[in-house]
């Protein structure tokens, strides 16, 4: 197993190299110029050119790419063109809020979506099933920012239960940390909950028709035991897969959610960097996200062995 994990990690290197080349090339040919943004609206063309030279943006593509790769090989993601701070430090500043948001959303999703999917499968065709699936369609259809604004209006402005915006680190207490994350996690989790609930229902429906479930019922096993111990465990592989794939959905959704709730996370950093053409930051974030995707896929594969003993690597 350990050697399998190591092999998979090594296999990420060529993937990352291709991602790096792709991202660098794309940014090189994309319109826009960070020197223009830095120089300000009133700057003369000469000022813009001098800034471009000082940033090394006037150098040929291969030299720029080579020097970037060389720095990465030395563990240096470079320095932000705008803030003059190391990209790794900027990502480090933003990692906590995004990770917090994703973890809370993930937990919320599992706690809500899986039972909903199980119940919908158990009561397939009933009113309960239709209500749950109706909610799933609704959740899947609503844009994150619409849900976000609605939640902020109701729970922050009208009821004054929760804050509108911001992020408090966990080091300042569990509740201050959590209260800032509840609304964003619900907003971001809506799509995810809908997706996981639907997949859980589908997987459970298939399992519930298996012979061993009929046997369990015949033996007089309770409904809860059948659903959550026997059926759910055997339906777990597709559920785990979709939860894993859904993390990509979360990263995408975090960009919007972090803007709506003013959470200083990686999503907002990405948007800011793209709008300003802060190339080193964009490249650093895309590399990080790519690595996360690869890692999540690896974790999904490892998790299969935990939920299904028949799977071995």
């Amino acid at each position, binding site marked *: *197993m*350990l050697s399998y*994990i190591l092999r998979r990690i090594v296999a990420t290197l060529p993937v990352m190299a291709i991602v790096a080349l792709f991202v660098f090339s794309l940014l090189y040919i994309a*319109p*826009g*110029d960070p020197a*223009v*943004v*830095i*120089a*300000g*609206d*009133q*700057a*003369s*063309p000469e*000022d813009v050119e*001098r800034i471009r*030279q000082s940033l090394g943006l006037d150098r040929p593509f291969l030299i720029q790419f080579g020097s970037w790769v060389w720095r990465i090989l030395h563990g240096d993601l470079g320095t*932000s063109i*705008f*803030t*003059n701070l190391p990209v790794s430090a900027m990502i*480090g*500043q*933003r990692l*906590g809020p995004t*990770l*917090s948001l994703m973890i809370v959303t993930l937990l919320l999703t599992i706690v809500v979506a899986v039972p909903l999917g199980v119940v919908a499968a158990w009561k397939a065709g009933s009113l309960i099933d239709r209500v749950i699936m109706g909610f799933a369609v609704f959740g899947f259809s609503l844009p994150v920012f619409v849900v976000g*604004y609605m939640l*902020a*209006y109701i729970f*922050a*402005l009208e009821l*004054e239960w929760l*804050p*509108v*915006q*911001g992020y408090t*680190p*966990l*080091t*300042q207490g569990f509740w201050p*940390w959590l209260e800032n994350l509840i609304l964003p996690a619900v907003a971001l989790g809506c799509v995810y909950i809908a997706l996981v609930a639907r997949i859980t229902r589908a997987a459970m429906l298939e399992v519930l028709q298996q012979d061993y479930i009929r046997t369990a019922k015949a033996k007089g096993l309770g409904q809860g035991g059948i659903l959550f111990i026997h059926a759910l465990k055997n339906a777990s592989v597709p559920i785990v897969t979709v939860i894993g794939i859904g993390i990509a959905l979360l990263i995408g959704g975090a960009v919007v959610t972090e*803007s*709506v*709730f*003013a959470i*200083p996370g990686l999503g*907002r*950093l990405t*948007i*800011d960097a793209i*709008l*300003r*053409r802060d190339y080193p930051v964009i490249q650093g974030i895309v590399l990080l996200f790519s690595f996360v995707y690869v890692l999540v896929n690896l974790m999904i594969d*490892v*998790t299969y*062995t*935990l939920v299904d003993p028949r799977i071995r690597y």
Partner: protein
Amino acid sequence: MDRRTVLKGLAGAGGLALSGGLSAPAIGQGAAARTLRFVPQANLANFDPIWGTQYVVRNAAALVWDTLYGIDAQLQPQRQMVESEETTDDGKTWIFKLRPGLKFHDGEPVLSKDVVASLSRWAARDPMGLMILAIQQELTAVDDRTFKWVLKQPFPKMTYALAKNNAPCSFIMPERIAKTDPFKQITEYVGSGPMKFAKGEWVPGAKAVFEKFADYVPRQEKPSWLAGGKQMLLDRIEWIVMPDPATAAAALQNGEVDWWENPIADLVPVLKKNKNISVDIGDPLGNIGSFRMNHLFAPFNDVRARRAVLMALSQEDYMRAIVGDDTALWKPLPGFFTPDTPVYNELGGDILKGKRDFDAAKKLLAESGYSGQPVTCLVAQDQPITKAQGDVTADLLKKLGMNVDFVATDWGTVGSRRAAKTPPGQGGWNMFHSWHAGADCITPAAYTAIRANGDKAWFGWPNSPNTEKEITSWFDAKNVEEEKAAIGRVNKAAIEDVVYAPTGFFLTYTAWRKNVSGIAKGPLPFFWGVSKSA
């Protein structure tokens, strides 16, 4: 590997990431009343006010670095770090003396050598500084508190140049920092102003924190914009960046922030209804909307085509598109200079007044030789002001019978494409939209967009010798009357040659919680004199 190992690993990694590097000071109840939470107009993405000339950087820098002179609410330069100055009879030598007791945030005294290095770096990036550099003989420290600037010819606007609030301002930094190449960013933020920059708490794009500098020596005069006593009544100011205006509005209503610098017009009615919030015009100097035509290529290389557009454009259409139906927020502007300022003059502005004459405009356009070639119009969609103006312009050009090539893009792309001097069909352009802070458009001093010196002019590269001649006459003016007359002549010449097209004058609001007091109207947020009750 078993389930337990995996779970332990995940928990460990998550806990580390959530707790590590995220510590921030907890603010007690008492301290909260002396902490102001402010939503700035934009993200403070860098903090070098000479290298990065964005307004938001200038605004933050005004807290951290002091200037030799400061502009006041009457637009007059007043002494700030300087105790006295004298000029020789020929006006070529300026000798300045610093106030005693000035200190940098690292505890070191502010000395003449620091000022010399700071002014040298500033002058290399500032339009007025460059004018001074062009006639500079020497800039030297005479002693620790005295320095002199020797010029080859008189420069009457010296104290204005050192006081002006237009970016870049001549902020005074320690010599070791000020010696940084003006085209490279500084890495230390040791200031000379009333607040220290808390670099450790800076999260670019999200938060910037400023803490009171106990050893700052304010002047005794009443504060007025960048002049007078910068008495800080707050211990800490947190700048919280909120990219979404709806979130900022909700946070202000919920009491999570205390002051929002520039609420958008659409949300102002909601804020005005809240009994805990005050809303007022933020900057009385406002903004001037604009679009620039490329003077290098047809059709706008012919002044008749440019005049035809000017004859037809309705500033009311542009202003309503930008600020909506709140008539308190805009006014027509028959010229290029900021209204309601001492030297304002709209001489020659008739072409922008009265009923729009499309027939005459079409006739003039035909005389220019326009024959239906595409007009490449760059419109940044991510900036509400440029997007609104772009939509109006596209409609205007179509009504004039022009073939509009509407390029909907983002501001970053407009920023780089407008620098291209290639023909419109080969990556160049015919028009782009922008706006200028009214504070920059009071006089030609810092007004890059009014310059019409061909290749050296701002994008569009207008070439109008008459405009340039009158700008020079403003610099040479010896009193307000002469200045006002010169401004009138600049306006007339710039309109005749259509240096650019002004689309009107508009204002914006600012909003704050009612437990905050002392907020002054001005071209940037002034924090001295601002206090907050619990």
